[in-house]
């Protein structure tokens, strides 16, 4: 994985020293809050409902063991012993004190992490496929490109005051595990005539005006990436609206001006600036790629795995849900669920972080990934190590077998923490997970994505959920709207609203009716919720939600 150069280290030290001085000047009154706020936001520091919150970037979701240990140490020393992993492959600390933040940033810098551009109207943390470098369906590892974009965009003088935030995601496989069509720019590595390039998607986004991104360029040669990105940003920076923050994202610019006009403007600008790119970025990229060389994989007998799979039903259930195909058939990609039933989605205690870091060192080539679905991935584990790994995970409360199931819920922090939220998300997620665990129906229900946002900004991705839940404030009371039929994969789709919302007390029974209704409607246990919805449309689900009296719990 990428190791900071001397330049990176010096840059970060200087930036942290600058912020330390800014914090001191805020505390002694030299800076007003209005002056300080944009400075703290550029360094990832928010003021939330109960405390400050520090958002730390985990670039393209990749961490090593030492970095995960440092995150745990920071949680213990300056926070409340846990961290919250987010849908943007960041980690958030919910309780830092202002005076401690510069020390936290220095501790992060010591392991090559930072909080720069995790907020503000800048290019944010570049996200990627959490299975990058390991997935069986991958053309190329997208992370070197993501790292190149991180270096290009960090402190880029032209893009520090964009009209609005700007999110870029990169994948290298046909399956989309990073929701690239819900990003300002989505990049997918593709091959044409033996050459690698990018399919470039722009203008996607969730929030109050959800839009699926559109293909602006179906094959961009590799070497043209940075000038092309710069051309898109140039066009957006000039053309994007600054009169209304809700119409300031590039999705609105594309919508208002039309894709063809935007493409013509981008092509013109690209032609103008392309000659200025000497190719030094491609030399840099080659160096970065060397840092992402695939780990040396072992060839061993998978017998220990086969034996455990046959003999141990608990291991088998976990293997069936939490393992994904690795490009090497002797290995597996392990997803560690941060969704234990009844716990807060995406939260890990410092002790759990250390267990995951140590397991990555022992069994996983010292690599960890954070997924946008708020779980942790060990991308390269030999199958023979899985029984031991699973036992250690279970001992740490990390053995939940629910990846892709109803309790593997994305939930934003909601009004338990977030100053923008209009309702709570976390307790709804906890209630749904606990209820379906009690019903013992989770594995029978099968693949089902529930995603919950506590406000219209949609950090919880509810628009692209099979069942989306949006928490709103309706006349001073929490109210939850249900959307159905969203899709976060390569066939991305925005869900449709089912009807009037439900109160905090009524939302769990409503979800239960909906899911039990699906069990009645599906053709066979193989037909997923998403497939049944696609086949039947909204009507029968709407009827189950609104026409039937609450049903007795399943026998």
């Amino acid at each position, binding site marked *: 994985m990428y190791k900071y150069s001397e330049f990176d280290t010096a840059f970060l030290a200087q930036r942290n020293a600058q912020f330390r001085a800014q914090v001191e000047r805020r505390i002694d*009154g030299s800076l007003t*809050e209005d002056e300080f706020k944009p400075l703290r936001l550029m360094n990832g520091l928010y003021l939330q409902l109960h*405390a400050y919150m520090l958002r730390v970037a985990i670039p393209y979701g990749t961490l090593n063991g030492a970095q995960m240990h440092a995150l745990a140490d920071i949680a213990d020393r300056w926070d409340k012993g846990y961290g919250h992993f987010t849908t943007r492959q960041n980690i958030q600390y919910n309780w830092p004190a202002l005076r401690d933040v510069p020390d936290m940033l220095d501790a992060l810098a010591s392991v090559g992490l930072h909080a720069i551009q995790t907020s503000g109207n800048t290019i944010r943390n570049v996200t990627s496929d959490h299975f990058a470098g390991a997935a069986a369906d991958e053309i190329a590892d997208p992370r070197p490109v993501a790292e190149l974009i991180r270096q290009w965009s960090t402190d880029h003088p032209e893009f520090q005051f964009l009209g609005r935030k700007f999110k870029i995601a990169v994948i290298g496989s046909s399956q989309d595990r990073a929701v690239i069509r819900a990003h300002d720019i989505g990049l997918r590595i593709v091959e044409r005539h033996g050459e690698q390039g990018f399919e470039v998607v722009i203008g996607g986004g969730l929030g109050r005006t959800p839009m699926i991104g559109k293909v602006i360029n179906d094959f961009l040669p590799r070497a043209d990436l940075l000038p092309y990105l710069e051309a898109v940003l140039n066009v957006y920076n000039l053309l994007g609206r600054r009169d209304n923050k809700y119409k300031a994202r590039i999705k609105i610019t594309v919508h208002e001006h039309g894709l063809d006009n935007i493409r013509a403007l981008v092509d013109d600008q690209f032609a103008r600036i392309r000659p200025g790119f000497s190719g030094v970025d491609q030399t840099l990229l080659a160096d970065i790629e060397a840092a992402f060389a695939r780990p040396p994989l072992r060839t061993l007998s998978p017998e220990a795995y086969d034996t455990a799979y046959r003999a141990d039903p608990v291991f088998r259930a976990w293997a069936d849900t939490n393992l994904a195909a690795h490009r090497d058939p002797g290995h597996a990609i392990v997803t560690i669920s941060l969704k234990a039933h009844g716990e807060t989605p995406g939260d890990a205690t410092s002790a759990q972080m250390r267990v995951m870091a140590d397991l990555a060192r022992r069994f996983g080539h010292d690599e960890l990934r954070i997924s946008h679905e708020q779980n942790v991935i060990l991308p390269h584990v030999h199958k023979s190590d899985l029984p031991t790994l699973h036992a250690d995970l279970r001992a740490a409360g990390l053995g939940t077998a629910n990846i892709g199931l109803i309790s593997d819920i994305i939930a934003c922090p909601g009004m338990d923490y977030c100053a923008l939220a209009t309702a709570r998300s976390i307790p709804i997620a*906890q209630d749904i997970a606990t209820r379906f665990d009690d019903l013992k129906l989770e594995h029978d229900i099968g693949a089902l994505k529930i995603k919950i946002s506590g406000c219209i900004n949609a950090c919880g991705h509810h628009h692209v959920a099979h069942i989306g839940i949006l928490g709103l404030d309706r006349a001073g009371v929490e109210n939850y709207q249900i959307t159905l039929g969203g899709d976060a994969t390569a066939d991305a789709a925005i869900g449709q609203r089912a009807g009037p919302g439900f109160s905090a007390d009524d939302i769990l029974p409503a979800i239960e009716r909906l899911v039990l209704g699906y069990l009645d409607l599906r053709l066979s246990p193989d037909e997923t919720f998403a497939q049944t919805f696609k086949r039947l449309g909204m009507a029968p689900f709407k009827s189950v939600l609104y026409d039937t009296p609450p049903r007795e719990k399943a026998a």
Partner: protein
Amino acid sequence: MPSPLVSQVVTASDLLQGDVIYLTADDDWTRQLASAEVISDEAHAQLRLLDASQQNNIVGAYLADVAPGPHPTHFREEFRATGPSNYAHGKQEAAKDV
């Protein structure tokens, strides 16, 4: 139209800790809503807010409605006065230590 029973408190976040604070009648700040100055006169409330907003050790002062008690009238203020619902952190944690 606000109910005649609804009064207001000046609330903000503490600059150093970032936690929820309320203005008291003797121009200090308290972490407990019960100790806040409850203001029933709208014009007086605006003046108290103006005074409070000048201070450097607080962030984002505003007026929040309270019912007699005082109790928050909106669920957001209820959460601010208590703490998050998933862990006993924030004010509910502080209350345990008393």
